């Protein structure tokens, strides 16, 4: 395990010390230099640069034609050295596009000592009147000077992740991810609840392959991979193991696992099988979907890995016969469950799926009729290592069926109780695969698929045509009932294309059962506090751009734990999850301010911060509250609810905020209107776009960039009103995971401001969307006009 990594508490206290020392320093004489960009006329054509320069109060002021040019990099560095500047204001364009550039140009200075004033997008491009624009430019730049005086130097926050991973689930997804990580030198533990790894894939016998237009042997594909996993020096497999507890730390997870005993010393068992013959207990064999029997001591299947026998402790009668015949002395009926601690830098949830409980649809007769089976049952029947050694036989009489009717969407696309609203995605292909095998090997058997929509997207359409060529009957309609008539089963369905109810005789009915989230997945999610989707699968952080992240930092998801998908997709997703874990380990990751830190000396561990944080950045580390800087967005919601004032937002402190507000409201003339607009990143982007498109709005608008409105407290707003703000607009993108906190914040701000006698329409909230910049511009305009035309202006 990687021990060089620093834990967050140290990081936090470093920051705290840093902050304190610099805070003191900032009181004594700092030297601020202002670098003004003419932007090839983009700024200087509207703004009187000479007047701007002469109006500023700073230690050094100079203007340049193109400040972002490499030539100016030299100028900036030289002036910093020559003038002994320790803070810099760049009065140019948008920090969204150029802050990094200028932080680099000012290199000997700490990046947080560089403040950008957006003269182009927020002044010269949106205002036409040079006189007013120049006045505003002076105000904006001076506010920048005041703000940067309060800036504090920040250290980079590098978050390291321990070079180890715990992968829950030993199916194809977990195995794929494990192998990829292990090959990159990461220590991996596969935690599997069953006695053998391989998951559902080992059971299904054949898998569909749209490219080869054939069915491939799943075990033949999987076995070499499983062997690699078993022999890999970086992979440890723990079967019959479940998670009991999970604790989050800054660089790893502390896991407590429980390994159920199988009464077998796995290291001694040589899988000779002598024990099986003497075992008197017989129970239905889950490997064959209960269609055959197995002993209480058994190996799940011939190629099972780990290659050892296991005892089903629930059914074992402890007669001791197996103990007597075991020559390796591998069986000990007194063995107990073992509790194993595990430290893992990252977690991958690959816990797979379960199948829909067909007994909840009694109208299809799964429990009543022997010859109504599921697709998984059929997969076992068709498997050469299955109960009939691959012969298609009716369960009832062992005869080959003349007709097989498949019922699609059993439990899928179904809003009724217990049903799944989603499409299970693979069942159409599974039905086609089995139809193909039946038509190939048992051409006397007719296959009818009753479907609502046949979903074979992309290359799978080729496979549909291939199976159709083998002779496949399709009925478009969803059966309502399966009954018995004489010797046959009877499927009632409407042939919707013929507009006729249809009663179809058949020998066998195969229900295409829905894929559903497994109980284990849900349990694991609860233990890790990972969010679930509405359909109770693990929810990805963002379906488009973060498809394998969960809402908890360093926990990833892949395979059917995240939603129905086929093997190809599961493998892709597993590879992606492994890549993400690796990225985190290899690169470390740098947290950008603003981020929240907790002063542990003040924290009383009440946990209010943890409750409000929609980013799940805050967790309880033993009894202490901790913040993961990688997950934190610096929105400030936690600081707002902390009763002890123990949380500080690094990167935008109160002094900076007050200094900027004061600067923006300074020198207000009689009858002049000033509106402060607090914009989050999306709002700020929209405002930049207003500038790019030269849409004008009133000079009264003065923009302050904030991480989120959650950062803003009532006292900030009151400060603004007291210093001359006529109105305050707060615009933010409605981020789903913080919606509740937003609502609460809006309520809090509105009520406190109203209690101080500020008219309700002087504080406005707006949902910002980057492409809808015209909407924001209209807000600016409307707010200004309302105040101008309103009669309560004089009250301020």
């Amino acid at each position, binding site marked *: 395990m990687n021990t060089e990594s620093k834990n967050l508490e140290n990081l936090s206290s470093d920051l705290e010390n840093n902050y304190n020392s610099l805070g003191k320093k900032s009181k004594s004489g700092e030297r601020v230099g202002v670098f003004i960009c003419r932007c090839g006329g983009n700024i200087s054509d509207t703004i009187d640069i000479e007047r701007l320069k002469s109006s500023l109060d700073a230690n050094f002021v100079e203007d340049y034609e193109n400040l972002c040019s490499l030539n100016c990099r030299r100028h900036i560095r030289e002036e910093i050295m020559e003038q002994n500047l320790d803070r810099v204001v760049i009065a140019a364009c948008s920090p969204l596009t150029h802050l990094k550039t200028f932080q680099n140009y000012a290199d000997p200075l700490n990046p947080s000592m560089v403040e950008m004033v957006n003269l182009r997008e927020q002044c010269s491009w949106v205002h036409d009147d040079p006189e007013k624009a120049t006045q505003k430019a002076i105000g904006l730049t001076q506010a920048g000077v005041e703000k940067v005086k309060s800036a504090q130097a920040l250290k980079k926050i590098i978050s390291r992740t321990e070079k180890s991973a715990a992968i829950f689930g030993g199916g194809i997804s977990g195995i794929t991810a494990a192998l990829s990580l292990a090959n990159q030198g990461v220590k991996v533990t596969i935690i599997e609840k069953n006695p053998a790894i391989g998951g559902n894939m080992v059971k299904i016998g054949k898998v569909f392959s749209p490219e080869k237009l054939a069915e491939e042997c799943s075990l033949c594909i999987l076995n070499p991979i499983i062997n690699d996993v078993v022999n890999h020096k970086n992979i440890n497999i723990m079967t019959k193991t479940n998670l009991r507890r999970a604790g989050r730390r800054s660089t790893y997870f502390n896991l407590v696992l429980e390994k159920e005993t199988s009464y077998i010393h796995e290291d001694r068992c040589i899988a000779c099988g002598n024990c099986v013959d003497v075992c008197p207990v017989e129970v239905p064999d889950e490997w064959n979907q209960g269609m055959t029997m197995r002993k209480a001591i058994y190996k799940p299947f011939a190629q099972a890995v780990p290659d050892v026998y296991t005892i089903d402790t629930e059914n074992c009668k402890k007669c001791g016969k197996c103990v007597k015949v075991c020559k390796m002395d591998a069986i000990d009926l007194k063995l107990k469950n073992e509790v194993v601690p595990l430290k893992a830098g990252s977690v991958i949830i690959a816990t797979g799926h379960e199948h829909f409980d067909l007994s909840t649809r009694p*109208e299809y007769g799964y429990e009543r009729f022997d010859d109504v089976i599921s697709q998984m049952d059929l997969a076992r029947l068709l498997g050469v290592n299955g109960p009939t050694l691959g012969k298609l036989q009716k369960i009832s009489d062992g005869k080959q069926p003349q007709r097989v009717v498949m019922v699609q*969407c059993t439990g899928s*696309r*179904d*809003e*009724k109780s217990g*049903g799944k609203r989603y499409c299970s995605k693979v069942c159409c292909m599974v039905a086609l695969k089995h139809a193909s095998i039946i038509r190939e090997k048992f051409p006397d058997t007719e296959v009818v698929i009753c479907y*609502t*929509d046949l979903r074979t997207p992309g290359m799978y359409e080729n496979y549909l045509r291939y199976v159709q060529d083998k002779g496949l009957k399709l009925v*478009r*309609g*969803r*059966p*309502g*009932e399966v009954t018995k008539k004489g010797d046959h089963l009877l499927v*009632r*369905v*409407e*042939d*919707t294309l013929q*507009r006729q*109810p*249809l009663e179809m005789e058949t020998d066998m009915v195969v229900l295409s059962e829905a894929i559903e989230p497994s109980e284990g997945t849900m349990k694991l999610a609860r233990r890790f506090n990972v969010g679930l989707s509405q359909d109770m699968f693990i929810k990805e952080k963002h379906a488009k751009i973060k498809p394998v992240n969960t809402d908890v930092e360093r926990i990833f998801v892949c395979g059917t734990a995240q939603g129905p998908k086929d093997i190809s997709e599961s493998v892709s997703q597993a590879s992606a999850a492994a890549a993400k874990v690796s990225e985190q380990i290899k690169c470390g990751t740098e947290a950008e301010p603003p981020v929240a830190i907790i002063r542990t000396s003040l924290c009383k561990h009440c946990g209010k911060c943890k409750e409000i944080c929609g980013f799940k950045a805050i967790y309880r580390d033993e009894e202490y509250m901790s913040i993961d800087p990688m997950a934190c967005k610096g929105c400030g919601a936690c600081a707002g609810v902390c009763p002890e004032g123990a949380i500080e937002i690094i990167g935008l402190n109160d002094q900076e905020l007050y200094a900027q507000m004061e600067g923006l409201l300074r020198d207000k003339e009689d009858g002049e209107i000033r509106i402060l607009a607090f914009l989050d990143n999306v709002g700020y982007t929209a405002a930049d776009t207003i500038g790019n498109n030269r849409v004008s709005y009133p000079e009264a608008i003065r923009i302050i960039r904030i991480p989120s409105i959650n950062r803003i407290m009532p006292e900030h707003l009151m400060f603004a009103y007291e210093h001359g703000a006529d109105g305050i607009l707060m615009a933010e993108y409605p981020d789903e995971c913080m919606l509740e906190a937003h609502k609460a914040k809006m309520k809090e701000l509105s009520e406190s401001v109203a209690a101080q006698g500020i008219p309700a329409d002087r504080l406005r909230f707006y949902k910002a969307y980057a492409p809808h910049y015209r909407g924001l511009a209209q807000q600016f305009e409307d707010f200004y006009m309302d105040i101008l035309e309103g009669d309560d202006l004089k009250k301020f």
Partner: protein
Amino acid sequence: MIKKEINPKSNKLVEEVKKDYRASQDLGIKRCMQCGLCTSNCPAARHSNYDPREIVKMVLDDNWELLDNPDLWNCFYCYTCQSNCPVNNSPCQVNQVLRQKNLHKAEYKIKMKEFSAYGDSYLDFGVGSMPKAFFDGMVKDYGKSYVDLKVNLEDIRHELGLEDYNIKGKALEDVRNILKESGFKSRLKKFKNAKES
């Protein structure tokens, strides 16, 4: 061939169905995927030309000719379609709304005649129950157990601590008055007196 002209009001019928008070608030009619599960189980579809899936399709197609489709009258409200529909639609509720739209017309009043005995049960017992006229048929279908149920219903309810099924005394008077004052009684009479046109 069906010719489909551009018509911005082309979902008027489904909107009317949805906003009718007979329709459940979350009626899934717009989510209908025409799977035909309703029809596969529909006794009326088995014995007549009635097709609940098609009825729903015609509503979604804004086909107002549906209102005069005689097949509409073959549904007898067993609610199987409602209990099975995978998108929580209820073709039989849709059917009720559609039928109601035509009841003011003379030719449809006659259709209500066979239901009027249900109306009588409200006047007689204060609740809706199986009309007397159907008794023999029910006994034929269900056998002696139906008679037992009928005879012992109130006793069973008392044993379970439930009140009488039928409403009695002052409460029954109140129900009758409400039915009279609200026009139910006279409306029922109109349906009873309807004649083939």
